[in-house]
């Protein structure tokens, strides 16, 4: 086929339909960018206003670029402490949730047992129930049992509401596993313990990691349930809420930027290694 012939054929084949697809493509593209902007604009604003050369207590109008706030990150000791509290709570809750949730996910994905339906229902109920309800009921539970609210109760509450997410992510991964791969490991001389650590766990690891990331993300920015269960402990979101009356200092933007950056880095690392793993 000559060049001219193929050009003619191409025009004949795709000719009349093309303008319409182009318009559709353009609309789709515009829509996608709109959604991305909608999602990322608030984040961009947060990052940018960490560099705002503001003089007043409020940080809402652009005054000019400065790195001053980055050097004065520790100006508010209560803020710094709140951030560290949040990190401590999130890390601890994530570890506990990941271990418990992974075990639950394995049990639910693998075995048939009495009360399985009820367990599944409770998992979904924990996701579906409004935070306000969960927070209030936790508080009344703690009060009626005489438990002092504080660091421990916040961790307990955070484990409670993020457990479902980990269990469900891991369960999905477990259900997708080919049982015969584990049987092959047994067949080749691996004990049940070795089989779990050498074969099963590496195969469900992507699910475990995404569950853990989800748990961390849920914990670090939780406000409602934390508010009910924190007692006198300040967390990052609680401190910001308190500060809104006087104006939020740029340090908050910087802290938020840092947490966001670390989160993005972990998520990217996870997706890269997950692609290499399976």
């Amino acid at each position, binding site marked *: 086929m000559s060049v001219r012939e193929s050009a003619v054929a191409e025009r004949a084949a795709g000719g009349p339909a093309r303008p319409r697809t182009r318009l559709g493509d353009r609309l789709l593209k515009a829509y996608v960018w709109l959604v991305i902007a909608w999602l990322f604009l608030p984040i961009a604003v947060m990052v940018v206003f960490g560099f705002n050369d503001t003089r007043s207590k409020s940080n809402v109008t652009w005054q000019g670029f400065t790195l001053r706030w980055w050097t004065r990150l520790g100006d508010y000791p209560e803020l710094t402490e709140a951030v560290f509290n949040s990190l401590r709570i999130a890390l601890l809750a994530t570890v506990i949730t990941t271990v418990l949730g992974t075990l639950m996910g394995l049990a639910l994905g693998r075995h048939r047992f009495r009360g399985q339906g009820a367990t599944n229902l409770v998992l979904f109920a924990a996701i579906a129930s409004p935070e306000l309800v969960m927070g209030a009921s936790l508080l009344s539970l703690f009060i009626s049992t005489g438990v002092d609210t504080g660091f421990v109760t916040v961790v307990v509450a955070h484990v409670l509401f993020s457990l479902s997410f980990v269990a469900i992510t891991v369960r999905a991964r477990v259900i997708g596993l080919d049982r015969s791969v584990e*049987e092959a490991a047994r067949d080749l001389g691996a004990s049940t313990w070795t089989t779990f650590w050498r074969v099963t766990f*590496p195969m469900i690891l992507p699910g475990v990691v995404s569950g853990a990331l989800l748990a961390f993300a849920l914990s670090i920015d939780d406000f409602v349930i934390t508010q009910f269960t924190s007692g006198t402990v300040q967390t990052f979101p609680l401190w910001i809420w308190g500060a809104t009356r006087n104006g939020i200092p740029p340090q908050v933007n910087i802290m938020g930027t840092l947490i966001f950056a670390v989160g993005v880095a972990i998520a990217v690392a996870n997706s890269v290694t997950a692609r290499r793993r399976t």
Partner: protein
Amino acid sequence: MTEIQAGTEGAAGAAATAPAPDSPPVPAIELAGVVKEYLAHGEVVQAVKGITMTISEGEFFSLLGPSGCGKTTTMRMIAGFEDPSRGTVRLHGQDVTDVPPNKRDVNMVFQSYALFPHMNVWENVAFGLRRKKVAAAEIKRRVGEMLEIVDLTGREKRRPREMSGGQQQRVALARALVNNPRALLLDEPLGALDLKLRQAMQIELKRIQREVGITFVYVTHDQSEALTMSDRIAVMNDGLVEQLAAPREIYERPATAFVAGFIGTSNLLGGTVDRVASGCAVLRAGDEGRILVAGDAHRAGDDVTVTVRPEKITISAEEPGGEVSAVRGTVSEVVYLGLYNSYAVRLADGAEITVFQQNALDSTSTAERGEAVWLSWQPRHSYAIGS
């Protein structure tokens, strides 16, 4: 091996009563009265209803049957993934009924290959040796040798998902064989491959089996595969072994109607014994027909069912003479298949008989559709089966 001996008290007993050197060798695998029952919806379902058989050392043994016949369950009981509800499994004379799969000296090739997706080819193959704490240098040498046998040298660093089905199949084979198992169990290992690759792998498997000299137990539902590769075949149906014999025996002399129907094409005919003469039972078939069955197992008045293979039957226009079976019918279908013609011939009683006639150059017996013909065959080709 030491683990097995240490783990079972039966092993010591078996060793004590070990046969004298001149008695027949200990079979590689023995099943004695093995039954597997499941509880499904409160009802006991028998997947395997009682199997007793022995598989010899170095044999290529096939378990053949339709899906749901219990062949995979039987194999999984040999591997140790299923516990028999009753009965005993012995490997080389040792009772392993209660020995877990990781302590049994057999390895399995799974239908889905079951390769470890997070390990490369080399790590997959080395997995079993590493579990046995074999020295690193030894592992390196044996994995290298095994990859050479399955023709995968140079692909050690590949991940399973980066390989074709045929290559994955060979990795699975290498991963099992590298451990030098006393027996290799293969669960429909070629099921996922296309026809060409399948046939190539059948020859390849046979070659590897000869090379390594290990007992192969092969589960398949493909009768031609079983006939091609096996030394002996156990044809299974509904949890029982219907016949256990060499491929030729199974094809030529099916023991039951099920075996006759499952292996190749077969014609079933029945009749009452009219008389017994000169080593043949003569059955009356219709008004003019007769079926001769060789042997003296039948008495006058017995009802007998016989099978006849389509290629043993001759079509002719005239009534054949001599000591042969002969029945009348009308050709209802002729299918040209290149190497041979396939005829469907309807008898007076409504039964339809399939006949294969080779397309020889001088073939004159080309019956047309609608033609009335005689079918004839030698007495030894009517094979009486149990009903």
